[in-house]
């Protein structure tokens, strides 16, 4: 896992909204869509967190400080921060899915008085895989936000916190489901189960948002690589209202 802090060398970048993404180019290798994971209050510092799994992300992860890379963006529809104002906000993140939500969490905490209860429920594979651990611990010390972390499994000597899937945290959380906006990001299976658990808890599908991931190329809805049924993830998403994609998520072919 690598976090890149990018300083623009050209004109001032367009301010990105939480949940949007940029296309990053490793010169001579290729381009990849990477969500912004930094603090939106610092627009001059573009932060992206990547998992080095493919040729482009591996090349990006190997860049040394001062190296140049290409960037275009920001693209896509982000998290519904305006809609969340005045309401409780439940954030459910799984694995690397915490990165695209980190911008939303920063925004919520910066403008804390605008929102009701703020809960962050995060599931990771093991204690060693917890992303932004120091930051989670800092947020957890605040009295105006509830941060809960669970892992799928843990060595006894490593961990004294929750062990179990992320949906188990929901039952213990205190919020008003009828007046809640839920933001969910993680592996697609985790998001499906989380959206179902949120619905069981009384959160409306219309107030539940998922950040989808598909192979994106052009980022402007032209090439069709990220087509998801009738929508393009890059142009119409990556953040979608759950009721608009729930039926699509059930199709194995998509």
């Amino acid at each position, binding site marked *: 896992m690598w976090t890149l802090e990018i300083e623009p060398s050209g004109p001032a970048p367009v301010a990105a909204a939480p949940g949007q993404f940029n296309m990053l180019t490793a010169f001579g290798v290729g381009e990849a869509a990477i969500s912004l994971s930094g603090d939106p209050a610092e627009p001059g510092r573009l932060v992206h967190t990547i998992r080095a799994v493919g040729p482009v992300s591996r090349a990006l992860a190997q860049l040394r400080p001062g190296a140049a890379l290409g960037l275009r963006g920001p693209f896509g529809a982000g998290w519904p921060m305006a809609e969340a104002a005045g309401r409780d906000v439940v954030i459910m993140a799984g694995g690397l899915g915490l990165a695209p939500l980190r911008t939303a969490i920063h925004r919520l905490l910066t403008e804390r008085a605008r929102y009701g209860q703020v809960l962050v429920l995060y599931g990771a*594979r093991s204690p060693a895989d917890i992303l932004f651990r120091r930051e989670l611990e800092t947020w957890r010390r605040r009295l105006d936000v509830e941060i809960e972390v669970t892992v799928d499994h843990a060595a006894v000597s490593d961990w004294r916190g929750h062990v179990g899937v992320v949906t188990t945290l929901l039952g213990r959380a205190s919020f008003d489901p009828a007046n809640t906006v839920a933001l969910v990001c993680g592996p697609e*299976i*985790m998001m499906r189960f989380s959206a179902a658990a949120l619905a069981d808890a009384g959160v409306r599908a219309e107030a539940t948002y998922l950040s989808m991931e598909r192979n994106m190329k052009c980022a402007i809805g032209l090439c069709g690589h990220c087509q998801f049924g009738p929508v393009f993830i890059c142009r119409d998403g990556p953040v979608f209202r759950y009721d608009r994609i729930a039926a699509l998520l059930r199709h194995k072919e998509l």
Partner: protein
Amino acid sequence: MSAAVKEIEEIVREHPFFEGLLEPFGKLISGCAKNAHFQPGEYLFHEGDSADQFYLIRQGCVALEIKAPGRGAITFQTVREDEVVGVEWLIPPYRWSYDARAVEFTRAIAMDGACLRGKCEADHDLGYEVMKRFMPVLIQRLQAAQMQILDVYGE
């Protein structure tokens, strides 16, 4: 009815696991119950032991663990207040398949599984009531295990 017995019955019926339990069932079930507490690090039971109890957790946290060669003990689930530890008392051969360790000071109601099985055999309405409450625990555990096996977060 003695004060101690009444107190146990109240505790059992107020525990979320037995929420809404009819009074006659509450009396029957409470007859198999006793208070228990565990210090941090103390084991409730060990893998391979006879599973003759289950526990309604009132306070604290219990880690369910399995020993893996070369990896030590691995926690696969934590159970906290308002939840229940143990389903093996329901199913032959009534044997624990993991260890349960108190992570912090833990107060619980320990239910005698053989006692409750006997009462469920004698009164199938009670048996159905108990099964309705344990089945969601079993299904949730199964679903959680499916997610954990899929290892959705990857390397």
